């Protein structure tokens, strides 16, 4: 019995030691949270895109690197910089792959809080294939983009902004994540014009590992066919000609009503 009790005591002591040490190691191992990450995707007429990102981290926790999910295929001309005491300073970056996931690694070894935010820009040679996008019915084109957070960083606020080339405008959002909540006054996405370019912005928040923000949208050329205008004009004129008997009826009935009022 005594031996059994001793054994149990040592087991409990070992487990307690592990539990006491583990949180400390976990704390040290926890990656920095990204306060906000925004991606502005300027789509060009040839289907390529220029991506402008902005990363804000409130507390780097001495991290040597930030590993940002790269959800674009074959990005090129990658440049990362930050503003330090009013001076633009380059931030070293590289692409890495883990399995099927790609990451943009930013070297943050000698960066501190005052260096935030970090700006990243790169080109994407094929963001959208026009032949796949459309034209579908009613001259509509469809596109989509997804941001999947496959990094260890929690992204507190995420913003995706798609900008169509000049002469194109968004028609509608077909599907989005976050989805529209009918009971909420706030929409997860919004449309706006800036410098005559059509923008679609989607907001996400508290994006842990594995969470996605994505949008599927339709768009079309801004210029409208003049056929409708011609048809509307012709139909309107024809109506005014063929239904002019209504004017005669109006005059006749007006006269009758006037007489009836006088008689009354």
């Amino acid at each position, binding site marked *: 019995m005594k031996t059994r009790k001793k054994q149990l005591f040592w087991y409990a002591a070992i487990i307690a030691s592990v539990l006491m040490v583990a949180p400390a190691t976990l704390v040290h191992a926890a990656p920095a949270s990204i306060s906000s990450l925004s991606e502005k995707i300027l789509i060009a007429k040839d289907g390529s895109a220029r991506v402008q990102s902005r990363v804000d981290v409130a507390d780097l926790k001495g991290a040597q690197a930030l590993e940002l999910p790269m959800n674009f295929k074959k990005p090129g001309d990658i440049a990362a910089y930050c503003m330090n005491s009013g001076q633009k300073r380059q931030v070293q970056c590289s692409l890495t792959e883990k399995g099927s996931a790609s990451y943009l690694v930013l070297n943050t070894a000698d960066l501190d809080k005052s260096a935030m935010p970090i700006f990243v820009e790169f080109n994407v040679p094929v963001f959208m294939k026009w032949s796949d996008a459309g034209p579908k019915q009613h001259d509509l084109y469809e596109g989509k983009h997804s941001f999947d957070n496959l990094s260890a960083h929690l992204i507190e606020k995420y913003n995706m902004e798609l900008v169509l080339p000049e002469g194109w*405008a968004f028609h509608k959002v077909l599907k989005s994540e976050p989805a529209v909540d009918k009971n909420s006054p706030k929409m997860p996405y919004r449309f706006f*014009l800036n410098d005559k370019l059509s923008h679609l912005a989607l907001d996400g928040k508290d994006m842990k590992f594995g969470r996605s923000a994505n949008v599927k949208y339709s768009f079309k050329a801004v210029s409208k066919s003049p056929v*409708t205008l011609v048809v509307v004009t012709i139909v309107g004129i024809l109506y005014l000609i063929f239904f002019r008997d209504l004017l005669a009826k109006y005059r006749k009935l007006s006269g009758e*009503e006037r007489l009836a009022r006088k008689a009354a």
Partner: protein
Amino acid sequence: MATATKDAAVGEISFETNLTAMPTKKETSKAALQKYIGFPLGLIIFALLYYMPAPSGLTMEGQAAMACFAAALVWWVLEPFPTYVTSLVLLGMLTVYSGWEEKQIFGVLGLEVIWLNILSFILCSTLVKTQLAKRVALWMGVKWGRNSLLILLAFLGLQLLMAPFIPATMARTMMVLPVMLVIAQVYGSTAENNNNFGVNLFMQNLQGISIFSSAFLTGSTCNIVAAAFIYEMGGHKVYYSEWMFGMLPITIVAMLISWWIGPKFIAPIAKEDRQPRVKGGITHMQKLLEEMGRLSFDEKRAGGIFFLVLFLWATDQYHVGWFGFEISAVMAALIGAVIAFLPKVGLLKWNDCDIPWHTMIFSAGAYAGGLSLYNSGAARWVVGTIFEAIGLQKGASFAVVYMIIITFCMFAHLFFTSKTMRSIIMIPIIITIARELGFPPVALALPAAFTLTWVITLPTNAKPNLVLYSTGQFSIADNLKYGLTMCAVGAALLIVAGFTWFKVLGITP
């Protein structure tokens, strides 16, 4: 709607209804001119909205939806062709110009609201066939039908009495509809040849149904949603009594104003229509009532089915506790309709039903237009743009801000048809504006919430409006004229109350 049947002698009441047939209206010079101008005007408005450069925040889908809906609205009001034709044209335009998806557009005819309308008319047919509607109409006519103003007041009293106990507006509509049809006839108003008594009777009931819903917190779902936002975002709990004490007096005054100005100024009742025109007058109606004798077994069955449905409508919030699930309004109506059709137990055969299918088609178009505006974000864009354009700046006085918000909210239903959606979108914006300008949120949000159910300008604004419109007793133009006037009256009353009664109650500073 009740029509004088061809075989009925002049001045006699017919207790049959014939809502299925489109009434052939008497032609007027105004109608002829409206028809001539209406179609090209709608085309012009469509072209202007469709071809204008899309403003910031509005998608191409939203722009197309707005253009199509605006044209349809002009055609519904001016009626260059029947309203159901406009609705069919609108369904086509929305599809062609991608204002909405084709599947969704045509699916509107399968919406709950259309089913509710169809089933409600079936239930109404049980009251007509069994003559229960005739009995109630004769009783009301004998008691209060001595002159037009008295009977109009009786109906308002009835609406006020029903409002706190029967929140379901369709229930209140179906209860009074058969009676109104007969009373309209008593005063000489039929679908083919309606007079201003008919216009006033139906318009005042249309208004009463909606306006009295604003008098009680539980009067409509949108009221409860608004109160929830005021609590969650504004930090103020709105009690039933606070809502009632605030708004009930306003609604009573408003409806009394409507009762008075309608027959005098908006749709003046001709001298000959101020007294019952039925052959033999009230005495004859008394005789008809006595001849009916006691309630027949069929009347009792019809009453039983109708009250079962009304009971289910009125007690929807308790169903989950009683049955474990809620019986929706349309399911309750379906239950009643099925019972009405059952052999031996029921009362109706299909040919006994009087359903105005042209109104269902009109409704489908109207709902498709409204839903396309909402789903495309166009309605939300309009609200947001107007609030921005109002340019409410810091330093603006409470009085100015209050007046602007009340006026806007009172008329917002013209382009933003869903009450609950207006509640979800507008109330949070108003609370945010209040906070930014340094005013107590409840001072702006609660009076704004009071306007949510004032959906009284067009038949498409609310289900009861559509049902009442289907009787042919008033035109869309009548509805618009009377409704806009009453909205202006309502806005004025709320503005005056904001500086007086609401101050006493502590709602406004």
